[in-house]
């Protein structure tokens, strides 16, 4: 990726024209694949089981324009926000706690090692038993799925905090208790940010999985019901919208990060 970017920047002129060209280069592969899909549909594959992108796109804009999909979309965003938010709050504390205290690490290590290989959507039936169909189940699954990348990144960062930073602060009168807030947490922020960036797509994967099985509303439920009823354009439109949400969330997060953490 980095290599490709470097090559590209040599070929592309600076300024508005350059960014327009970069935009085209970035999206050109998608255009090709979409065009192939358009050709394949109705020719290589029956249109009834693979609706062409033109139909899917019209359907997507239609769902947005009439506003019929908006409550479902907002509900899914709401679930992702809660699940991701909780996993950040808990994951950062747990990651740093485990890195700084042997007993905390010892206690939680076994649970995390057990949780790690489980596909989190496999827990949906259990969550349904506890919370029923709906938001709580989805939030729990998203929370569990996002927890590990956030814990791992903050754990590794807090383990490797530069000892000289801690010593410098102690020399200037910072007590051991305050070292956590004044040095360890700020120093781990770049890695916490990396963990959140890894967790964002995972959150949407978990959301879709949880809603597919464990919800009667939200984007995942649309995919399921449209699939069962055989309304494939609607099903594809819901998939496109989930993908778009995840993409916007990731891009938005990167922008926010560059603005807030200018020092990284």
């Amino acid at each position, binding site marked *: 990726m980095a290599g490709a970017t470097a090559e590209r920047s040599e070929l592309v002129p600076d300024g508005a024209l350059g960014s327009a060209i970069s935009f085209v280069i970035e999206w050109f592969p998608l255009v090709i694949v979409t065009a192939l899909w358009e050709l394949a549909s109705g020719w290589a594959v029956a249109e009834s089981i693979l609706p062409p992108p033109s139909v899917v796109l019209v359907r997507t804009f239609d769902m947005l324009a009439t506003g019929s999909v908006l409550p479902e979309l907002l509900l899914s965003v709401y679930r992702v926000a809660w699940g991701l938010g909780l996993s950040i709050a808990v994951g950062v504390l747990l990651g740093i706690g485990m890195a700084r205290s042997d007993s905390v690490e010892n206690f939680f290590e076994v649970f995390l090692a057990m949780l790690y290989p489980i596909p989190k959507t496999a827990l949906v039936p259990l969550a349904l038993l506890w919370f029923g169909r709906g938001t709580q189940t989805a939030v729990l699954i998203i929370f569990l799925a996002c927890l590990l990348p956030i814990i791992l990144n903050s754990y590794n960062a807090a383990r490797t905090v530069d000892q*000289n930073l801690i*010593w410098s602060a102690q020399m200037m009168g910072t007590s051991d208790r305050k070292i956590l807030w004044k040095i360890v947490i700020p120093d781990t922020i770049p890695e916490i940010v990396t963990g959140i960036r890894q967790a964002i797509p995972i959150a949407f994967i978990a959301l879709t999985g949880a809603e597919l099985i464990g919800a009667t509303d939200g984007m995942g439920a649309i995919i399921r019901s449209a699939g069962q009823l055989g309304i494939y354009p609607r099903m594809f439109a819901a998939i496109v919208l989930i993908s778009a949400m995840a993409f916007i969330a990731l891009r938005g997060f990167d922008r926010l990060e560059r603005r807030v953490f200018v020092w990284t």
Partner: protein
Amino acid sequence: MDGHVVVSNLEKVYQSGASQTKAIEDLSFEAAAGEFLSVVGPSGCGKSTLLYLVAGFLERTQGTISIDDVEVEGPGTDRGVVFQDYALFPWRTVMGNVKYGLEESGVGDEEAEATAQRYIDMMDLDGFEDTYPKELSGGMKQRVALARTLAYDPKILLMDEPFGALDQPLREALQDHLIDIWSDLEKTVLFITHDVEEAVYLSERVMIMTRHPGTKKSILDIDLDRSLDREAIVTSDAFADLKNEVWRSLREETEPEVSL
């Protein structure tokens, strides 16, 4: 003037599992208040360990370290440390870094900023107050680190090869800057280096350490006319003689290592 350092019968053993490594053995010396004392020695002689013991970062195995007759028990604001890798807080601006120690001592924000500004100016960093460390060059980072340490006014500066990562012209400029400041601020300096010329140029006395385990080999008085400029000093015979004496003494310690 305060800042009298007394080290006596110091011993430091690193314990790692069943194996023990003696880094420092039976080391005693004093640094008078306001003195500039350099410590040179072959690599692995424990000179950085010595500095970390005086700083209170490490616990000593035997012996005592006292500052103005008070024994060192951990880090404290009577000392300031400058590392080779600067150890600046990346999430704080130059101003934020320099006023950190003042904030921690409970000085009001306005006063902290005014004091920090004085040291920023002293280090020729004005105009960079709102810059983050990642945007600074190595020499500038080290000036910020020095300003940060000086700003909270410790009695003793502990410097661990502070200019070791910088190129020659920059190193010389910072050495001269340090001498200027030191003569005005009246602080005791304990300066760790492996650069003989640097040690002789900066110091009033140079302590040479033996090879592993480290202890004092000798202490040399550096009697140079400080009213002269750098060129006059470094080209003088007196400077060359002192440099050669330290170099020879150090050479005796490193010789066994360099058999090829």
